[in-house]
């Protein structure tokens, strides 16, 4: 079969690329890497469109160049690289099948090993007015400004939390944005937090710490106010954003009454972390564990980064948002493990390489944990929406609509059935975590632990014409007990009456 492979990697960001490089380095023969975008790089190493010329590469920043080196390396290893391919289906078994469509239709790849590196996306945060044009995620703003060279608006307010917030604010301003305010939900970095960071910094991550201070200084110099302990209250406007209303929040991110400030703005850039893209993992039955700090549900993995589905690995942000350093290391680890499983590395070499990777991984994880401790997502974020706020953007269902259906229902899927939440084009990506919280809050129990909407095929919406076989006829029913009773002579098609 010409679509048989030794390894299929889904996702061409840092984790996926690192896995490909490592697997090929060890001699794994048929490696295919699939990515939805036109260029490799994922989100953090997003490339400019091919037609844009990069005149001064160094002006693009350290990340961009790092990304370019990684992409160049990936292109040199003779793996089958398939950008512009959307993975829509996966089937488990001793041999796994991955269906993806791109130019030239739909293809199904078979391999004994799959590495899922689907990354993460901006955490959707419902608040009143969040659906107005002008409310944009930090990632979306970054895509527009860094990649497309277009400012998303004329007066931009940034709301969010985390180490990326200030970095991104600086970047936005440097690229010409009119930034009128930055609102960080966390309190000013506490002394204890700073010491923790300092400790981790000593292990070789000092650059991040220095940058944080530098960013603040930059913003101050340029007259951009930074407020701590403030979060978005609502977006106001008729057809588009006209005003951003922010308010103080306490340490748990619960709103503080009477603290609202109104800011004239046409764009609200929202950055409260990321959520792992786990649909593919859930469709094949990987066991998940919920972690608010890691962004949401994440697959349970063993030391080899293998999920509970044997032969299926998860690396990078899709396994819990931990940033690109960890993504790179995890990709390398999984690539090495797969090479070992395929007999391309002897046991000793494999062990040595894995040890050599696990050491920096542990260090990076420690640093990440320190960062996460200082910049925690607090559960109050789930109380920013009111009953009138849209929960399911696609199907236009409000929180109030859902709460009415919650009497006696413990099951997000039952609520979906009754309210249509999660039945739209985004397939629950914008709403399922919040839905799980709302359901859980209604019936009690640890918040955030509620079951998510069941992930189904297709993993991404699939244009039907690509796979439909217009010459199809209903196949003869299999002989045997299953269908005998529906025919007498066996010559007729089974009942059309489907359920």
């Amino acid at each position, binding site marked *: 079969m010409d679509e048989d492979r030794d390894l299929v990697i889904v996702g061409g960001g840092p984790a996926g690329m690192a896995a490909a490089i490592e697997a090929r380095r060890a001699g794994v023969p048929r490696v295919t890497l699939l990515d939805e975008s036109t260029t490799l790089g994922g989100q953090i190493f997003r490339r400019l469109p091919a037609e844009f010329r990069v005149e001064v590469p160094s002006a693009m920043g350290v990340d961009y160049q790092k990304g370019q080196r990684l992409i160049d390396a990936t292109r040199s290893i003779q793996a089958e690289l398939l950008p512009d391919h959307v993975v829509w289906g996966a089937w488990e078994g001793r041999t796994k099948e991955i269906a993806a469509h791109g130019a030239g239709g739909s293809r199904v790849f078979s391999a004994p090993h799959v590495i899922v590196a689907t990354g993460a996306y*901006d955490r959707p945060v419902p608040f009143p007015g969040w659906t107005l044009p002008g*409310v944009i995620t930090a990632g979306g703003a970054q895509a527009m400004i860094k990649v497309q060279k277009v400012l998303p608006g004329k007066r931009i307010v940034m709301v969010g939390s985390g180490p990326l917030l200030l970095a991104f604010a600086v970047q936005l301003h440097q690229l010409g944005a009119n930034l009128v305010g930055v609102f960080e939900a966390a309190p000013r970095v506490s002394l204890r937090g700073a010491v923790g960071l300092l400790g981790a910094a000593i292990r070789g991550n000092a650059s991040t710490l220095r940058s944080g201070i530098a960013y603040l200084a930059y913003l101050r110099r340029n007259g951009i106010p930074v407020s701590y302990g403030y979060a978005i209250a609502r977006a106001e406007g008729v057809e588009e954003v006209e005003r951003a209303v922010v308010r103080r929040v306490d340490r748990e991110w619960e709103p503080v009454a009477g603290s609202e400030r109104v800011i004239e703005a046409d764009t609200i850039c929202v950055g409260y972390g990321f959520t792992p893209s786990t649909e593919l993992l859930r469709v094949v039955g990987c066991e998940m564990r919920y972690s608010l700090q890691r962004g949401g549900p994440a697959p349970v993995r063993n030391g080899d980064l293998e999920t509970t589905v044997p032969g299926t690995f998860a690396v990078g942000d899709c396994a819990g948002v931990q940033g690109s350093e960890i993504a790179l290391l995890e990709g390398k680890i999984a690539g090495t493990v797969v090479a070992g499983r395929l007999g391309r590395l002897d046991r000793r070499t494999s062990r040595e390489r894995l040890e050599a990777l696990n050491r920096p991984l542990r260090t990076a994880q420690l640093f990440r944990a320190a960062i996460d401790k200082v910049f925690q997502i607090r559960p109050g974020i789930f109380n920013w929406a009111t009953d009138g706020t849209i929960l399911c953007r696609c199907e236009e269902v409000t929180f109030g609509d859902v709460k009415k259906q919650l009497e006696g229902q413990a099951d997000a899927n039952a609520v979906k059935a009754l309210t249509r939440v999660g039945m739209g084009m985004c397939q629950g990506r914008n709403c399922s975590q919040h839905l799980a919280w709302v359901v859980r809050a209604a019936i009690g129990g640890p918040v955030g632990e509620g079951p998510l909407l069941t992930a189904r095929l297709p993993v991404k919406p699939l244009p039907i014409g690509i796979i439909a076989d217009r010459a199809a006829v209903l196949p003869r029913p299999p002989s045997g007990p299953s269908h005998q009773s529906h025919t007498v002579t066996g010559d007729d098609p089974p009942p059309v009456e489907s359920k």
Partner: protein
Amino acid sequence: MFYVDGRATSAFLGESIAAALLANGVRVFRRTPRLRMARGLFCGMGVCYECVVAVEGRPSVRACMTRVEAEMRVTTQPTDEAAKE
């Protein structure tokens, strides 16, 4: 040059439809079917399906993931009727 709701609109070769629309001051990409809410670019990376427009009559195309091509006809009010024009 491409067409947005029939209007000739300038764009850079290779940029996304979303970027071209924003650059030309268009931020409302569609209205929702039931409540007619204005929607536009949200996630910018192909996940949220808010930025969908009709391209050459085909509805539900993500503007942030699709590159502008010369003479492309884009409709920002994509009822299927409008898309067929």
